[in-house]
């Protein structure tokens, strides 16, 4: 356990009533996270997806959250104002139960990083591109216990270990390093 530390909590407020389903958030997110930056575009790589079912008037922008190696024990299904949402519609997890928030080639999990950038962006790009204010941004300061956060590489490796087992990953890494 670390000591108490001041922390900025970054919140994207999602107003689903204002979403018109254009998916500009997906476009700019995937462009920002491309290598080189903005070099390509592909909503499938976006860390925000709009769950849409236009004829049922369903539009939910959902952000990629934590990777999880296993599904929940059960699934949830919401009905709000008479509208029935898909299973796990509001869930942010990159999870084996669905194809959301995975790199299309590797299957590696994606996670929203609030557009960390140098120099820092004023707001995450999805918010900047949402002219209808379905997405707005807020920061506030909070005090909390600090804990070590696994880095991107570690999250990726963990998911590969879950998929193939640690031994196989070690073997592969060893073999790849010999090639060089």
């Amino acid at each position, binding site marked *: 356990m670390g000591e108490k530390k001041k922390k900025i909590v970054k919140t994207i407020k999602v107003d689903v009533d204002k979403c018109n389903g254009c998916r500009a958030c997906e476009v700019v997110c995937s462009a920002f996270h491309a290598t080189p930056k903005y*070099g390509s575009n592909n*909503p499938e790589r976006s860390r925000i997806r709009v769950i849409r079912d236009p004829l049922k008037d369903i539009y939910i922008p959902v952000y990629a959250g934590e990777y999880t190696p296993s599904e929940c024990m059960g699934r949830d299904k919401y009905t709000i104002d008479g509208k029935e949402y898909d299973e796990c519609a509001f869930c942010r997890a990159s999870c084996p139960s669905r194809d959301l928030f995975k790199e299309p080639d590797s299957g590696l999990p994606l996670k929203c990083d609030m557009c960390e950038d140098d120099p820092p962006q004023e707001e995450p790009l999805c918010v900047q*591109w949402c*002219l209808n204010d379905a997405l707005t941004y807020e920061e506030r300061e909070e005090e909390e216990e600090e804990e070590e956060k696994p880095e991107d590489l570690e999250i990726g490796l963990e998911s590969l270990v879950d998929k193939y087992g640690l031994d196989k990953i070690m073997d592969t890494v060893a073999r790849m390093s010999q090639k060089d």
Partner: protein
Amino acid sequence: MRYAETGFNLEVDLSRGNIERVETDPRETELYLGGLGTNAKILWDRVPPEVEPFSPDNLLIFSAGLLCGTPAVGCNRTIVSTISPQTLLMAYSMMGGFWAPELKYAGYDKVIIRGKSPNLVYLWIYNDKVEIRDASHLKGKGAIETAELIKEELKEPKAQVSAIGLAGENRVYFASIEQGRSSASRGGIGAVMGDKGLKAIAVRGTKDINSARPVEFMELCNEVLEYIKVRAENPIKGVPPILAGLGSPQEMAIHDEEWHTTNFAWGNARYRKKDYWTEEVEKKWTESLENVRERFVSCYNCPMKCGATVSVPGISTYMMKCYSKLTYTMASMTDLDFGFKIAQRATEYGVDAFSTPQTMAFALELYEAGILTDQDMDGMPSDNEGRFYWLLDRIVRREGIGDVLANGTYWAAQQIGKGAEAYAHNNIKKHEQLPLKLGMLNPVYFLMYCTGEKINITQIEGQFPQAPYPKREQREEFVKDWFQVPDEKFKQYFLDWELRGENSNPYYPTVKMSCDIVDWQEKMHYIDDALGMCAGLSSFPLKPPYHIHNYPKFISSGAGIDMDEDKLTHAAKRYRTLVRAVNIRRGMRRKDEKPPEDHWKKRFPELEAELLDEYYKFKGWNNQGIPTKEALHELGLDYVSEDFLQRGILTDNEGTPSKETSAEKEKK
């Protein structure tokens, strides 16, 4: 690496069930950009004029625009091109929505359909996996219903589906292709799809689209977004509310419909109701719209919200945009409630919202005049609304009189005879037009009606105000921030344009000015249609975020093609001329280039002839509207003039009249 485009087309032969992925030549992109430009090239190369619209050799091309799938804001159009069964000319109807970017992400710029399937099928494209699938269970299903059923059976809610309804299956000459909130409606391209036995194309893609100079490209996109905000806060003054903002006309949002309801014609493009719009009507119409509109909806990557989900109690939900809100209402002389109801059925059937209501109103006029009889109309209800439903149902099934009406007013009148031709009074090149009847000839609009090859006024107008502003101060105010003009002279043209007196219609704008104005307006549409950009952010509204000054930068940094204003203007002229060449080869001539005779009350035959003469010259066309050998050479289109010479369309001596081609003769 190819930038912005994928560099691959999908060639599908439905007769043989063959599918091929074909690499395209990047030099063609440089010459014709993409979308409409490269479509025109393919139709020129592969569909000779002997090929009938319903021949297996006719091609149906679904194309994404060059910049679709990049972050270019509002760039999402699918350009569908084929030979129209109604006009017998090239049709290039377009739709927004989500289909074109999805096709790009699947790895293709175009889907080129040829042949005919013996059974009803649909195409399923998922990246490299492409299948022709049985659609017999979808026969007769609505276009929107079909899309939902396909997504369900594929278990692919993220797939984007373009589909036809019953009208397309039955080859109605004004059948559309529907895609959720959007549709490619004009020219009967849905009938060609139905003729090919193709019910739908579903697509899903998960690949990347690359930009050549990404940081520069994103800066341009951000500038567009910033300017959209500026325009939202600064609507254009001095024009009807419907024309003041960006996007396609904001029919789903705006309640003030005075301009449309009192200026446009009701019934079969017949009656002006100059006193129609009252407080009482406005209150009722506001309620009608508010009651059924569930949400504003956008197309892919666009902050505008031109469409809406419409839910009328008791019938299934659908999506609507633009002027279809009014066409059924005004043709049937009813009210907005009925308009919303019948538009739902029409959308599922998949029909064009200009031609369809007009054809029905035309039929009722013929019935009132005794040209169509009780026998023809056997079973038609007596109430007005009932009659429109009845006619719509007959037309899309081609039952009884519906089989005749399904060919549109021009061909139906030919078939009915007995003076019916006079009632098909609102066509250009056999195609139903916006229901508009005005007083004084407007020289700019005269040229656009005559020569617009989309054969739809909204697809050529836009950059220059439709009417003069009454006061000079207002005009000075207007030109202050008008940076979109390609040349400063356009500001002067507008400044000097008066409502009355010497500098007013029809002799002002002068012939020369009219040529300049039409050419500029048309050019912007042609650029949009190659790039896949929505006209609503570009060529249609006044003072748009995309214009001739920033487009070359978008193309250079996005597609990696060196571009400047001159080169872009030249490219647009090249494929615009190629569209004309396709039509000229199919028999289109000067005599076809005229507005509906009753469009204006006051006509000026001498001036009109001069306008057309000078505009043809300006464009490099001879007095028959045929591109000249020299003009074609300058555009690198020598292959067109060789073909023209061979067919006797052009002769080495340009003074001699060209001979009639097969497509020009009346259809059997």
